[in-house]
C-alpha cells in the first residue's frame, strides 16, 4: 500500500468522540468500534499498516490490535470485493435453504465461499447466525439485511449491486453515528 494511511478529518473527529465514551485511561475500549471505522475507510479490510495506524492513535502495541482483529469474524484480514455478501448458514437459515442459496451464488459468480470475483466486485462469505431466524434465509450486504431470500431474489440482489457502487453505499463513513 503506497498511499498514506490516515483517517480523514471527519473520521478522526468521530474517533475522538468515541474515545471519550470510556473512562480516562480506558481508551483501549474504543478499539473495536475504531476498527469498524478503519475497515469502512480503508477498502473494507484491515491490512497490517492500517492496524499499526490504529495502534498508534490509541497508543497501544500493534499486537494488541492484531490479536483483537483476528478474533472477531467481522474483521477481514484479506482484501474483499466492493460488495461483501454474507450468507447466514446457521440453524433456521440452513433449515430453510441457505445451503441452496450459497450454491446458487457460487455458480452465478463462479467463486467459492470466501473468494472474490476477479473484477473485485463481489466477495462471498458464509457467516453464523445473524439473529433474523424468523425471516430465514437471510443475507447481509453492508448494513442491510435481505430477508426471506430465494434463488430468484438473490439474482435480483446481485444484479442491483452490479449496477451501483456498493462501496459508496455500504462503506459510507456517515453510516456510523456517534453523538
Amino acid at each position, binding site marked *: 500500500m503506497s498511499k498514506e494511511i490516515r483517517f480523514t478529518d471527519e473520521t478522526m473527529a468521530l474517533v475522538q468522540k468515541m474515545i471519550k465514551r470510556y473512562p480516562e485511561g480506558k481508551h483501549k475500549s474504543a478499539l473495536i468500534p475504531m476498527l*469498524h471505522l478503519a475497515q469502512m475507510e480503508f477498502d473494507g479490510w484491515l491490512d497490517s499498516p492500517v492496524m499499526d495506524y490504529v495502534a498508534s492513535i490509541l497508543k497501544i502495541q500493534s499486537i*494488541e490490535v492484531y490479536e483483537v482483529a483476528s478474533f*472477531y469474524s467481522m474483521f477481514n484480514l484479506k482484501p474483499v470485493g466492493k460488495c461483501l455478501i454474507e450468507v447466514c448458514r446457521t440453524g433456521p437459515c440452513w433449515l430453510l435453504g441457505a445451503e441452496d442459496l450459497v450454491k446458487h451464488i457460487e455458480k452465478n459468480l463462479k467463486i467459492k465461499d470466501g473468494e472474490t470475483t476477479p473484477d473485485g466486485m463481489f466477495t462471498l462469505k458464509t457467516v453464523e447466525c445473524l439473529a433474523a431466524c424468523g425471516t430465514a434465509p437471510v443475507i447481509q450486504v453492508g448494513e442491510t439485511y435481505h430477508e426471506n431470500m430465494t434463488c430468484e431474489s438473490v439474482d435480483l440482489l446481485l444484479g442491483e449491486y452490479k449496477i451501483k457502487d456498493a462501496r459508496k453505499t455500504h462503506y459510507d463513513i456517515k453510516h456510523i453515528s456517534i453523538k
Partner: protein
Amino acid sequence: MLLENINVPGIETLSVYRANGGYKALEKALKMQQSEVVDEVKKSGLRGRGGAGFPTGMKWGFIAKPEGVPRHLVCNADESEPGTFKDRYLMQHNPHLLIEGMILSSYALGANTSYIYIRGELLYVYHILEKAIQAAYDAGFLGDNILGSGFNLNLYCHLGAGAYICGEETALIESLEGKRGNPRIKPPFPAVSGVWGRPTVVNNVETIAATVPIINMGAEEYAKIGVGKSTGTKLISACGHINNPGVYEIELGLSCEEFLFDDKYCGGIKNGKKFKAVVAGGSSVPILPADLFLKTAKGEPRLMSYESLSDGGFISGTMLGSGGFIVLDETASIVKNLWNFTRFYHHESCGQCSPCREGTGWMEKILNRILEGKGKQTDIDLLFDIQSKIDGKTICPLGEAAAWPVASAIRHFRKEFEEYVNKPEEIVDVKHYYAVNNLQQSAK
C-alpha cells in the same frame, strides 16, 4: 407488555413513545429510593431473559458498593444464539423501551455510566438506538440531574464485531475493554469486579425492558402474571418449519400445544407436514421430540415456563433458554441439524479451554463423517463420550451449549443416527434430507 405498542406508528420516536405512556416508569422510579427499585424488581420475580433465567433482583443485590468506585450497568444486546431474534425486534421497533429501562435500572444500581453492547452485525439497529439516545438526552432523560432528581447518567452504545462468545457476560466485559472475547474465570463475579475492575451488572435487553412494566404496574401485579416462579411475560422468537414465524410475547405458563398450533402464535407446521422435534430455547438447549415437547414424561401437558420445560431434567426435558424456538418438521434431518449446530459451536469456541476447543472440532468431524456415509457404529458412542467430557469442564457455558444438543439428539433420535451409519447409501441418495418412516415420535 413489551410488545404492547410495537405496532404504533412512530413508536421509535420520543414523542410518540411518551404519548403512549413512555418514561412514566422512569418518573416514578426517580421518586423512589434506589433500594426500593431493587426491591420491586426482586419482588416481581423477574428472571434473566437472556437464557440462564437467574433472578434479576438477586443479581442486582450482589453488586459491590466500595466507596468511590464507579459502578456500571451493561446491557447485553449481543443476541447471537441461533433461533433468537427477539432483542433485535424490540430494539429496532421500540428503542425507547430499552433506554427507559436502562435509565431506571442504572438509577437502581447507582451507575452513572452505562453501555449497550450491541453485536456489530446489527449496525442498522445501532443507528436507531443512537438516534433514540440523543432524543432522550435532548429531553432531559439522560445527562446531568435527570428530571431534577440529582441523578446523572451517560448512556452509550458499543459495537461488537461478530463473536457469539461475547454474549457470555465476562467475555462481553473483556470485549468492552477492547480485548479478545475470552471469558474470565469466576469468581470474582462481575458484580464485584467487572468492566475495568469495577462492580458491573450485565443484563439482557429483554430483562432491562421488563423493568419498565414492573415499575409501572408494581411488582405485586407483575408477579400475578405467569405461573409459579415463572412470573411475567416472555418474548419467544419462533422460526423453522412453522406457518407464522415471528416474535410473540406470551404469558409464561401458556400451553406448549397452544403456542405451537394456535393461529395466534406459530400456527402449526408448514405445508401440512408432521411435527418432528423442537429446539425450544435457542440452539444450546436439548432438542425434544414432538411427544416430549407436548407432554412431560409423566404425561402432563407441558407449559411454556422455566419449570415445565425443564421438567424431567435432561433425560426428558429441556430449557426455556433465550426463547429461540426452532421447529423441525418430519423432513428435517436431526443428524444434519446437529452437525450444523456443532459446526457453529466449533466456529464460535474462543479456544481457551481444550475440551471445548478440541471437542467441538472432533464432534464436527465425526458428524461430517457420518453424513458422508463413512460413519461407524462406534461413532455414535464416541460422540456421546466426547460431549460428556466437554460438559461442565470449561470456564464458560459454551462448552455445555455445545454438549447438550449432541447428548439430547443421540438420546432421543439414536435410531436415526444408526440408520445414517448402517444404510448410508439411502441417506446420501436423498441428499441428507431424511424422511422418517417409522416416526414413533409423531404427534398430531
